[in-house]
């Protein structure tokens, strides 16, 4: 299967990745070969087979809704690239 430049650009935009010309070209080739490899699965008839998302078969793991202490704000902010006044700081959204 052929992967087009438009497809790679579209998927990169969905993935929030910027690819330069060279990376884009390489990605077209790599994805085409990986997808061709994945197309082997079409040899199998899977009609009504139930998909498996997880092997344990656990379903709806609930716990009591009890309040408990959480981390201090400062601890959670310690890794933030930029912070201000107890909040995460990001580049301006609206002019």
């Amino acid at each position: 299967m052929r992967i087009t430049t438009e497809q790679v650009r579209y998927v990169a935009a969905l993935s929030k990745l910027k690819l330069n010309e060279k990376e884009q070209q390489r990605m077209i080739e790599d994805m085409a070969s990986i997808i061709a490899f994945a197309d082997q699965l079409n040899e199998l008839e899977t009609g009504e087979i139930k998909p498996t998302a997880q092997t344990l078969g656990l379903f709806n793991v609930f716990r009591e809704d009890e309040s408990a202490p959480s981390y201090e704000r400062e601890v959670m902010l310690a890794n933030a690239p930029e912070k201000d006044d107890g909040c995460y700081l990001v580049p301006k959204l609206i002019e």
Partner: protein
Amino acid sequence: MKDFTVRELGRLLHGRELSALELTKIYLDRIAKTDAVIESFITVCEEQAIKAAQAADKRIASGEKGALLGIPVGIKDNICTSGVKTTCASKMLSNFVPPYDATVIKKLGQAGAVMLGKLNMDEFAMGSSTEKSYFKKTKNPHLLNCVPGGSSGGSAACVSAGLAPFALGSDTGGSIRQPASFCGTVGLKPTYGLVSRYGLVAFASSLDQIGCFTRDVYDCAIVLNHIAGHDAMDSTSAPFIVPDYTNGLTDGISGKRIGIPKQYLESGIQPEVREAVNKAAEYFEKAGAVCEECSLPLTKYALPAYYLISSAEASSNLARFDGVKYGFRAENCSNLSEMYETTRSLGFGEEVKRRIMLGTYALSSGYYDAYYKKAQQVRTLIQREFADNFKRFDILLTPTTPTTAFEFGEKADPVSMYMGDICTVAINIAGLPAINVPAGLDSRGKPVGIQLIAPPFCEQSLLKCAYAYEQTAGFGFLQPEFKEGI
């Protein structure tokens, strides 16, 4: 000092022949000398290790017993350690210091193990050679021009080179068993859900599992005793009562039924690896087991299914790395969207971007049914095929890897690198436990490994077989000829 197993070190510590502090200093000294060559550690936490060793000595002095009390350990750098950098070998997390411990770290801490440092890996555990690390290329202690395997290559190399008596790693498609095979150590991937994933930086959540690298099978049982068990912090943790895995380990395997799936010995398998599996069958028969050929015809479909499922889950899991709350952030971005894109484009390496792209493609509108859903349906079929075989067999025996360790740069295109995972990925797809046991050296002096696979939660039976093989075959730990600090 010669290299000791965890069990032997425990005897020395409890017999007061050696203090935990002395032991820790020996390992720190070895790391300082040898790791300049092997490059298995990303972070060495000397100060913290010495404090932990002193605390362990106090506990030993007060009469406390414990198989891991005072025993040094290395940890793969995708397992969160409070106050110690956890980088996932990525630029994206190169400065990330977790505010909490993963459950396995908490458990090891309670047992009194002494963490020496954090180990190298393929970036975000995506790779089979540890060449994809942002920081360094770890060498295979058996042949320094060869890769240690991956993604837990640092963990395998560290145990192989005697820089820690055991290490933790993670296995999503073979990332413990393949490097264990390449470096000649024991490597266990437990049943999905047996060991808590809380604090393991997620790659593919339905496949990831934490496990261990040890010098022998007995040690593996000891370590599993300490890391297994239900955890309320992980909603995919199994409510399973954990036995003592050392119990009955040495009882023998008389009457065990061992299946050898023929598809695992077909084309592309190095003759010496095939030979090791056939020899292993002879050893098992000698030990009283019954070996028989069996068939897993869906084997070849496990690899494409694995790459679709794991990449899809990765694309979702890695969406969190956006430069806002932690990790790397690109500078001089004029708006939020540009900041996200630039941060992710500069912060992730090539392989990670490739998997995010593939996963996003497989999940995108119009392709979801054809790729992601299809792969999950194939997953159901593969799981059933294993279950059918386990009606007739207690254990399955296969190679761990089609070939022994390859050289740096040898596998340049992604599909040829992926093909090397052919013997390991189906086990993650089906959520089964499996172990690599060393099976001697090939003609070029590289370790060969065999893989044993068991039904879910049958680690006791798995370890028993691995132990019987280890004892009968007599290879034991494959000591590299590598000299300290060359």
